[in-house]
């Protein structure tokens, strides 16, 4: 009898492996293979031609990369872009969630509209924003020069490398705040009304309620948003490339190295370095901030 039960367990174990095998195969093909192939390429010089050939160069790609000032400038741009967009979009998302957590007429409609930047296709948004940032016709310059008088002359925001970073941060923060809003409002709605009522009885102001009730309960969600947005924005390519060709964040730097300078080996080294940096950041973040 006991043997029969053990046999049954054994059989079930094999069945389990059998059932997850297709998923494992897909994951291996779509994730492990590209990562490993990229790692392999980073130690080679890739000679492009009808017959591709690979020359082993050891660590020389890594040495060249670490001594390349262009790479470190890209690292700086990527970190500034990632940190500021994550911070700004989370703050806007947080206040939008607080605002739309109140009951008012048409709340559902407004919630839907708030999601628009996140749901709309990126290419149409980019076209609209390219127009907004245009030095002659754009509303952004009109606002800053003619209405507010903050700058004396219009600026080519997307075409000047020193301003392109600001323009891309503005665009990405606007586009991504609904994501933070969505996550935060879900958590906000889960806070029991009793807590607010009790605070009201104690005479707590809005800021005290925010500080002692809302924020402590939201911290985990905020930290998770930071982690996810951090991962996504460090790798961000499409939006940036479509908006401007003058912001050399790491993904753009890798793309240019691969397809404009035809140096696939070095491009693989850049992306491997990005991967390792991000892995380090995630491990540190999970241990120190999320405390998993």
């Amino acid at each position: 009898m006991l043997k029969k039960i053990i046999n049954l367990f054994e059989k079930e174990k094999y069945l389990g492996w059998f059932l997850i095998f297709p998923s494992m195969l897909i994951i291996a093909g779509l994730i492990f293979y590209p990562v490993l192939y990229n790692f392999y390429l980073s130690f080679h010089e890739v000679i492009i031609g009808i017959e591709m050939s690979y020359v082993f160069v050891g660590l020389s790609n890594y040495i060249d990369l670490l001594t390349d000032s262009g790479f470190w400038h890209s690292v700086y741009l990527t970190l500034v872009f990632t940190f500021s967009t994550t911070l700004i979009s989370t703050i806007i998302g947080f206040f939008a969630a607080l605002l739309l957590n109140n009951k008012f007429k048409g709340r559902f409609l407004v919630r839907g509209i708030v999601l628009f930047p996140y749901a709309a296709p990126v290419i149409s948004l980019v076209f609209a924003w390219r127009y907004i940032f245009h030095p002659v016709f754009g509303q952004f310059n009109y606002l800053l020069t003619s209405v507010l008088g903050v700058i004396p002359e219009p600026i080519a925001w997307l075409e000047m490398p020193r301003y392109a970073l600001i323009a891309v941060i503005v665009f990405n923060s606007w586009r991504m705040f609904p994501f933070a809003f969505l996550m935060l409002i879900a958590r906000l709605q889960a806070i029991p009304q009793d807590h607010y009522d009790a605070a009201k009885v104690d005479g707590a102001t809005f800021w005290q309620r925010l500080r002692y009730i809302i924020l402590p309960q939201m911290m985990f969600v905020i930290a998770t948003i930071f982690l996810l947005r951090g991962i996504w924005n460090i790798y961000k390519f499409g939006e940036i490339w479509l908006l401007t060709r003058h912001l050399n964040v790491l993904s753009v730097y890798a793309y240019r190295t691969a397809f404009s300078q035809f140096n696939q080996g070095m491009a693989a080294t850049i992306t491997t370095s990005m991967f390792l940096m991000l892995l380090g950041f995630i491990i540190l973040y999970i241990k120190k901030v999320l405390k998993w």
Partner: protein
Amino acid sequence: MLKKLNLKFVFVVTLLLVLSFTINSVQAVEITFWSGETEEQRQAVIREMVSDFEAENPDISVEIVPIHESNLPDQIMAAIPAQQLPDVIELGLEHVLLMSNFDLLDVDVATDILNNIGIDDYFSGPIDMTTLNGNHLAVPMHGWVQGIWYRQDWFDEAGLDAPETWDSIAEAAEYFYNPPESYGIVTGTKADHYARQSFNQFAFSNNAYLFDEDGNINFDSPEMLETVEFYKELVNFAPPGPQDHRDGRSLYMADQLAMVVYSSFFMGTLESGAPELIEHTGFAPRMVKESEAVYGQFQSLGVPVTSSDEEKEAAQKLIEFMLTGDNYIDYLHMAPAGMLPVRESVANNPDYRDHEILNLFGEQHDDILAALEVANAFGFEHGQIFPQIGDISAQFVIGTAFAEMIDQDLSPEEVVERIQNRMMDIVD
């Protein structure tokens, strides 16, 4: 009951298999055509032409992929390792050389096509510029000339000369610069092909060449420095920040620009965007300083060596179909006066010449055609072809440095030094 169902199932599956086999055997060859025409109206013409071709050749099906010329180097470089190169590819001169540098173009197919169409009928310019070491790399399709398009009415009113010399260009640019109401000139200063193309004409008019006669990079010559100095001076009369042809086009159509460096496609663009400006617009294809310079380009069709024999045969049929008879004239009329014929018999063909827009040009059309014959470009200098221009142009070295010049307020000496060093790095 179950048995009956099973039998039916087997029958249907067998039928489907047989049908799919039959369909596959009819559609024997599928080829891909990377077209450089990305505008919807031109794509519609090409799609119709390709449908006619498929109707005539039921054993060939063609997939058209429109790719903008600025994205072409990236796409080619991504397609090589992925083994996804097309079977027919539209290429500018520098891209012909870029492909040729990687030994990717089938010169035998190109030669066959040229012989079938009639190589003697071609103007010498397009053939010379696509022939390297005696090999025809690609089949020239059409040409275009670049120059300065200007507001003839504004110039007449101000009593200014047509912008054909450096002095007249500078004088007009300054005269009409009255921001934000109007700007003097738009010329290329972004990291793209347009910047190299527009600067090229200024350089050649000052006898400044990118290569010396031995093929060394010669961007730091005194003539080139003088050209960059002049170019920077002109940029002062342009709208804020780096500019490209799209910026120039929008401003011109908005009545806010006196001059724009643009190809012969401009007239067609005006016709669809601001037809009221056509009669007020002049065109100066020749630029004079130390010598007279015309900048021109030829678009060609190439067949990559990576295609199979059947695919190459189908590609050859498609190219010959598009470049002969009425099809070729229909193709050129997609952008009348923009796409110029590369064959003498077509240039003189009444069917080609009888077109509303071409009639607007009148005698100037002949002048533009004549200019195309003497047109030149970086890399095609001193009667030689320097294939390194393919790699150099793919990296937008000149445009990148001009964008940096505006962003970082670089001196002309710094711009020249950066371009020289970067080009030497690429060539090395």
